[in-house]
């Protein structure tokens, strides 16, 4: 019983990772493109909070690596970003789970900022540094979307549990 529900849950994680990756490269209208939230990252944070034993750092790292390949970035860039955010989330999970949703969103804002800082920094090191302020927009759109991600995730896990 428990095994099977573990399996269902694992499946859910991998499917939501795939969905997050699809949403990361799906064409959006030009004005919306710079605001595109990092849904794969948000899903990862959510799963690390709800089931830290299953969604571990390996999961985070692989999501990031796949994103690197999909976007044609230097291999390991998003992987490192995802890994770092995953690690910090793991460290903060006990507190974060207690927070009201708005306070959680604020922490998520900081996590996303950390992620984009890592990406920005590596971009700079590899000689692609674009300093347009628009590159920080996903931080805010992602934090705004956090309550939605939680609501969606809760409904999905409850049904599958």
């Amino acid at each position, binding site marked *: 019983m428990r095994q099977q529900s573990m399996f269902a849950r694992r499946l859910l994680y991998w499917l939501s990772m*795939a969905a997050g990756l699809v949403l990361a490269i799906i064409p959006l209208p030009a004005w919306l493109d710079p605001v595109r939230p990092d849904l794969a990252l948000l899903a990862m944070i959510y799963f690390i909070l709800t089931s830290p034993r299953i969604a571990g750092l390996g999961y985070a790292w692989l999501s990031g*690596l796949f994103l690197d*390949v*999909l976007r044609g970035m230097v291999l390991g860039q998003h*992987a490192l970003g995802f890994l770092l955010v995953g690690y910090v989330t793991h460290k903060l999970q006990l507190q974060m789970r207690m927070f009201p949703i708005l306070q959680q969103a604020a922490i998520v804002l900081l996590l996303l900022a950390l992620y984009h800082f890592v990406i920005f920094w590596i971009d700079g090191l590899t*000689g*692609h540094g674009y300093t347009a302020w628009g590159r920080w927009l996903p931080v805010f759109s992602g934090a705004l979307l956090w309550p939605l991600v939680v609501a969606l995730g809760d409904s999905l896990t409850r049904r599958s*549990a």
Partner: protein
Amino acid sequence: MVELAHDSRPIIGRGPPLTAYFLTLAAMSIGLMVADQRYHQIDQVRAWLSAVVHPVQRAVDFPFRATDWVTGSFADRGRLRQEKLELTARLRLANLQLQRFAALEEENRRLRDMRANTAGVAEKALVASILNVDLDPFRHRVLLDKGAVDGVFRGQAVLDGEGIFGQITKVNAATSEVILISDAEHAIPVQSNRSGVRTIAVGTGDINKLSLPFVTVESDLQPGDLLISTGLGGVFPPGYPVAQVTRIKRAGSMFATVDARPTAGLDRAREVLLVWFTAPPASEPAAAASPPEASAPGSAGSATPAATQSTPPPAPPESGGE
């Protein structure tokens, strides 16, 4: 509210310690980045990984393609008629131009024969369609549905119906990545069709704008001039349209500010051409501005050939010295 699911168990004492695991993976990421960026050792790894994610790309592309197909199949009669009329008109015009072109081609061939130089004309082309996949909003890259199995190679020139589109930067098994000429890391040697002034057109990151940073104030360029590829550097076939000069500001003492608009439909094209051609021998007298190896993207040192291409002229190119 985020709740802990039933499967949560203490982290300590199960599996590898979190921090050790983190450090291991972090080291692996950094190792990967260094290997990828500095040594290009892991192209094979990337090829495997892109085979894994290829279904995702196809899945994203599929609905767009299907919509196209459906609208194409069920297009109403009126629109088809309209389209047919337009196409007939365009064909007539094209035929008219073709008649003149045949004569010109003949003449051109004779002239080239005289110079013993038939190289530089695109010999073989392959149509590739652009996958409906967004890569990065701040880089102008697109993904094509042709890859190594079709013979695509890194540094290959990509054209569309109206001009030069870009060049291949990454080749996977079934897909390849193109850097557009408007990407801020791209540069292409060009020549004014009217006056013959040679210079370099650099991408700006704006899809409708190229910049010509190495044009001296007294060089002979005008708004409206067509810039064509010179073929210097051997990446692009010579003589294809690249951009049209839109604005010149001759302030300052040394260099003019020149903007140009790419002629290729960088944000509209659905299908592009991959071309094969024999590079012209680098015997052009004025090749000094852009040494042939500078734009050979095989090395692709720091990400793209552009970085190396735009750096060489510490002294301005020959544009003023016509």
